């Protein structure tokens, strides 16, 4: 079983639309949406949920107001400025300390050092993850709670479950939609993958973000290919991107023209290749064949 991850560096380059098109072109694949922070793939693939589980990425400190003596040790030791003297009064003190869950990183330092044993440390539910069926095969995806942390851990979990599912069902490919950026969730989605496709666009921003994300894939020793979407917006920039890529040993496997079909297909809840059999559809199919060849 091989694993392909579609990422982008810069957001809004068409990564998810292209990943969805691949889902409809692949045979015998398990699909994973690793863009847990802003998951969109389900809008096109319309998964029917078969299993649903809570995701807990860590624990969360909470001060028990009745026990707090307002000594201030917790606030003094918290490195995340997550604890303030804004809690309710109790029998002993006029104000108690309180943890802001949005700033708390679950380090347990306050719990450990509280002399009054007044801080609880329970697992936090940060989101949900699902195993579903789609018209193109099984899909593992998630919904991270609003303003929740631990997206990297959730990505790792999704990939692990998708891999297990692929092995159980004898699938040949794991197709992952990754997240934009270069930080923790992106690293979690590419580590150990067989191949990464970076979707970029011919703009200075696209070129700059491609350079940064290609450094990341190289750093982790992962083979990467490039797709330039909206290629006709600036053909000169396409040439620059392609020549810079070649110098870094990266291959451009597709130039996809700017096509309203990207938006129209979304609205119809269809993949690009389901929606259009025009030039874009043909280019996507040709790119897919090349990716399969490169996957080996």
């Amino acid at each position, binding site marked *: 079983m091989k694993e392909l991850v579609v990422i*982008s560096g*810069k*957001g*809004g*380059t068409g990564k*998810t639309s292209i990943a969805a098109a691949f889902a409809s072109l692949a045979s015998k694949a398990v699909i994973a949406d690793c863009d847990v*922070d*802003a*998951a*969109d793939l389900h*809008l096109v693939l319309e998964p029917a949920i078969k299993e649903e589980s809570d995701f807990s990425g*860590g*624990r969360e400190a909470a001060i028990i107001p009745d026990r707090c003596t307002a000594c201030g040790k917790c606030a003094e*030791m918290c*490195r*995340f400025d997550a604890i303030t003297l804004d809690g309710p009064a109790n029998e002993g003190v006029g104000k108690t300390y309180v943890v802001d869950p*949005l700033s708390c*990183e*679950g*380090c*347990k*330092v306050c719990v*450990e*050092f509280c002399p009054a044993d007044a801080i609880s440390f329970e697992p936090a539910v940060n989101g949900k993850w699902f195993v579903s069926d789609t018209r193109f095969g099984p899909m593992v995806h998630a919904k*991270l709670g*609003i*303003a*929740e*942390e631990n*997206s*990297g851990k959730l990505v790792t979990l999704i990939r692990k479950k998708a891999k297990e599912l692929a092995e159980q069902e004898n699938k040949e490919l794991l197709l992952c939609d990754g*997240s*934009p*950026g*270069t*930080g*923790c969730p992106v*690293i979690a989605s590419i580590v150990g993958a067989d191949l990464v496709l970076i979707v970029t*666009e011919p*703009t*200075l*921003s*696209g070129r*700059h*973000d491609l350079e*940064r*994300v290609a*450094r*990341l894939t190289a*750093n*982790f020793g992962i083979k990467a290919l490039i797709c330039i979407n*909206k290629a006709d*917006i*600036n053909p000169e*920039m396409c040439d620059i991107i392609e020549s810079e890529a070649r110098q870094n040993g990266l291959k451009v496997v597709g130039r996809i023209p700017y096509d*309203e079909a990207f*938006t129209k297909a*979304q*609205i119809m*809840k269809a993949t690009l290749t389901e929606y259009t059999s025009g030039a874009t559809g043909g280019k996507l199919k040709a790119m897919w064949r090349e990716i399969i060849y490169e996957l080996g």
Partner: protein
Amino acid sequence: MKIAVASGKGGTGKTTIATNLAVSLSRNGRNVRYLDCDAEEPNGHIFLKPEITKAEDVTVGVPEVDQEACSGCGRCGDLCQYGAITCVKGKVLLFEQLCHSCGGCMAICPEGAIAEKQRKIGTAESGHSNGMFFSHGLLDTGAIQTPALIKHVKKGIVEDEMNILDVPPGTSCPVIEAVKDADFVLLATEPTPFGLNDLVLAVGMVRRLDKSFGVAINRCDIGDQEVLRYCREEDIEVLFQIPNDRKIAEAYSRGEMMVDALPEYEKKFLQLNDKIENMVKTDEE
């Protein structure tokens, strides 16, 4: 005043709006500070072409163990929630890149055998662009503590001036760090199913943070009416709309400011700012 320009979905015009709003205000006599908090993929410099006058390493504290003094008790590893320090057969092993710099291991070590050293996670650069303060963060390849770098960039905020924060896409920890002190959050989106789905998530985030906010719709004439319908139902102000215009896309691709390619937009960005300042004032009252 601090205006954060954010979005659930990437590529919806955050940087375009943030840089053009900043330049429009600056050209009209305001003291503006542009702070690019998208430390994983910063792009503001491409359009503002700043002269960088200062570059600083941004570091985070990580443990350093004096193996001689260590008794191998393992209390550091028991406390660490991130798997960054662990004790195997009386020997302490470190995984620096997983460390969140909470300081727990140093505080709990009964032998005082753990000191703190600094590990570089990125660079913060600052300077000027046509009389406007500019700063951005550049996360090192493979580093994960984006929020710590954003915190550093935010030190460039001056309360009495107009601070425009360019926020990373999404709704998770780096985004929270970038928007949590803002007076107003402008959420950029596009009128498509993906744009709407991610806007709903971003609205959930700013509501949880109890922020005053409004929406900007980019490429407002592609797609459908669902974003407008959602905003109407949720009583959310749509403050700005940019039509799909090949001229804008081409200027963007070359790193040109929208207010230079289409000068009529300068006035629109000033009007956008007036609306935002009015909303913040009303909210304060």
